[in-house]
């Protein structure tokens, strides 16, 4: 196993000899969802020439779903991820709605929204409190032995407990609606399977004051920390790109329906009211041989190749919490709008640093809590008309929804009986792929000098990736350590420097 890994590294190192002299490999990247590694290429002077974020796992969902009945797709695709099953469930059900050519009953649409809000809260809370907070609150250079959730519980018990309970609240919303926390097969083409009970509504309502207090406290705490992390804020993926997300017809924050909007780094709307189901007209997908993750780009501006990295007007765009806050005019709830105003003071019209994904995540948790509170007062929520019945009426359908990590597209083609012929999924993390690669290079350039590899630097490179909260599959590495292996490889293939961190 080890030999294989090393020989693979030699091979890729040789490939890159034409342009680079040495390579740093971080494999695997820790405290993210899924499996990935990072390669940093250095020249003779120890300066970073390039960096790559490789997604090393292969899933194959688009292929093995072929031949399945359409109605099973929400249940199957929800299994893509144990963190954001609801996102896939909803995008899949929405693609199914299109193929059945039905309008979902209003109560079902509202219940789907409610579940998506629960999903956003639980996933954002996981990303912030479980995965990333150890970096901010214990320090980027703190002892890696305790730089994890357990270290956080020891150092800041109240905040850690609040974060865990916040995630549990989001999970509870999902469970009350779908009958289970993970992989509920509840949303179906045409609507949803089960209603919300009044008892369930009361259970959610009762917890709102507690979770609202938790998130407001966390926001306060994070804002105090910002000045300590000025350097990170400047170097963690701080560059101009486009931002994409769903907005309502009025241009407000949206998470389930609506139209696509693109804004540029100056805050100008460059495309608006795009029909998300016609995504192929404005999103292209590029493929690179060194990663299983595709590289989507904004089609009118084209794909950014290696040679023209410095071009500013390329199709690189970001999605997710930061993008959603950058594309909307308002959120539409009082507390979150107040926070949004403060957030925007950081960067003018558009906040560019990916470090602020964390900040945006906290604001979105607050917005979701407020939205849940508003939704629960809607009497229509308890209607028993929840599922439109229809059969195959169109052979193609696209379902689009906002997942915690960004806009998610499910595109299906079926035969006349309803068996899947073709599946195309565009996952949020894929759309951030170009930006994540550039982020790694930016951090490495700033923090690596020469052949010395300080542990804190490695953690910063990983933290740069963590800011995007990439979801590479259903696995999480929330606690403890993953084995980490970094090699500096010279021109002749000799290992110049090597650092091991063995799994405990």
């Amino acid at each position, binding site marked *: 196993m080890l030999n294989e890994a090393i020989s693979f590294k030699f091979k890729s190192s040789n490939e890159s000899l034409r342009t680079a002299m040495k390579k740093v490999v971080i494999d695997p990247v820790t405290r993210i969802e899924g499996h990935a590694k990072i390669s940093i290429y250095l020249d003779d002077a120890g300066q970073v020439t390039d960096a790559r974020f490789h997604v090393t796992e292969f899933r194959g969902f688009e292929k093995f779903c072929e*031949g*399945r*009945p359409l*109605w*099973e797709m*929400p*249940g*199957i695709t929800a*299994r893509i991820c144990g963190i954001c099953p609801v996102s896939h469930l909803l995008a899949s059900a929405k693609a199914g709605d299109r193929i059945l050519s039905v309008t979902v009953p209003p109560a079902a649409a509202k219940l789907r929204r409610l579940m998506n809000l629960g999903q956003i809260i639980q996933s954002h809370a996981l990303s912030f409190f479980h995965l990333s907070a150890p970096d901010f609150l214990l320090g980027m250079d703190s002892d890696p032995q305790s730089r994890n959730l357990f270290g956080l519980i020891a150092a800041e018990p109240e905040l850690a407990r609040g974060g865990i309970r916040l995630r549990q609240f989001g999970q509870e919303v999902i469970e009350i609606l779908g009958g289970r926390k993970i*992989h509920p*097969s509840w949303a*179906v083409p045409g609507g949803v*399977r089960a209603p919300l009970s009044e008892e369930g509504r009361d259970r959610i309502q009762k917890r709102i004051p507690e979770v609202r207090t938790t998130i407001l406290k966390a926001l306060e705490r994070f804002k105090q920390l910002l000045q300590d992390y000025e350097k990170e804020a400047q170097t963690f993926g701080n560059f101009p790109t486009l931002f994409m997300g769903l907005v309502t017809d009025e241009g407000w924050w949206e998470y389930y329906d609506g139209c696509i909007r693109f804004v540029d780094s100056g805050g100008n709307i460059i495309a608006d009211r795009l029909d998300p189901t016609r995504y192929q007209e404005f999103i292209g997908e590029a493929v690179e041989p060194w990663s299983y993750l595709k590289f989507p780009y904004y089609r009118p501006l084209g794909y950014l190749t290696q040679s023209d990295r410095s071009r500013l007007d390329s199709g690189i765009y970001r999605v997710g919490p930061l993008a959603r806050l950058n594309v909307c005019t308002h959120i539409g709830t009082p507390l979150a709008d107040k926070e949004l105003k403060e957030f925007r003071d950081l960067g003018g019209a558009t906040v560019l640093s990916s470090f602020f994904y964390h900040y945006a995540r906290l604001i979105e948790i607050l917005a979701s809590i407020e939205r849940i509170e508003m939704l629960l007062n809607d009497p229509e929520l308890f209607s028993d008309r929840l599922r439109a*019945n229809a*059969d195959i009426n169109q052979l193609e359908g696209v379902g689009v929804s906002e997942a915690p990590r960004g806009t998610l597209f499910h595109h299906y083609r079926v035969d006349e*009986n*309803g*068996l899947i012929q073709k599946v195309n999924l565009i996952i949020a993390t894929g759309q951030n792929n170009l930006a994540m690669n550039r982020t790694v290079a930016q951090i490495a350039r700033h923090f690596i000098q020469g052949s010395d590899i300080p542990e804190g630097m490695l953690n910063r490179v990983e933290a740069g990736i963590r800011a995007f909260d990439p979801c590479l599959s259903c696995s999480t590495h929330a606690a403890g350590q993953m084995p980490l292996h970094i090699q500096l490889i010279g021109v002749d293939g000799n290992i110049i420097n090597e650092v091991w961190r063995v799994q405990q």
Partner: protein
Amino acid sequence: MSVKTLTVNDRFISAREEETILEAAKDAGIHIPTLCYLEGVSEVGACRLCLVEIAGSNKLQPACVTKVVEGMEVSTNTPRLQQYRRTIVEMLFAEGNHICSVCVANGNCELQDLAIETGMTHVRLEYHFPDRQVDVSHDRFGIDRNRCILCTRCVRVCDEIEGAHTWDMAGRGTNSYVITDLDRPWGTSSTCTSCGKCVNACPTGALFYRGVSVGEMKRDRAKLDFLMTAREKKQWNV
């Protein structure tokens, strides 16, 4: 009608002469696992899950088709039987493509229940991953042969209760599969009455109502028994 007495798991029980070991045990509250057996239709003894040990014979006998005999000593749950049953269930899993987590019958499946009952924590055999067909051409039902265990319950209910004989078998051995009419798409069948008895009879997620999603397939087996009882006792001819 004479009465026979026998022991099942060292318990004395009595049974009517024409009863099978399975029926006699059931009347006495003794559970024997079954899969191809379905109340209301004929027995075929195909799945071999109801095999029992009979004292004096080294050969295991299927309880669903073996008649009771005076003085018979039957054991239904010996370590040997437990091992065989678990192996049979493992073979069924390895032979088809059974993925419970995304199956329409998840939580309502007799094969799944048996895997739990026999303590199947994993499958020791190599999976075959056969290439099997899904047919959703019928406007009310669908069949996913990946989940079919060839119990032939659908064939028997269709033939014996509905009288349509739409279902039958094609092929041999592990390449066998159930067919509608002469292996035509179900939706084009001229014999199918769309009664849905086969769907109610299916022990797994192979037969399902069109449009059901994961874990949503629930069946009403009592309907089949109700129909047969009503027919045999002529309850409609008052």
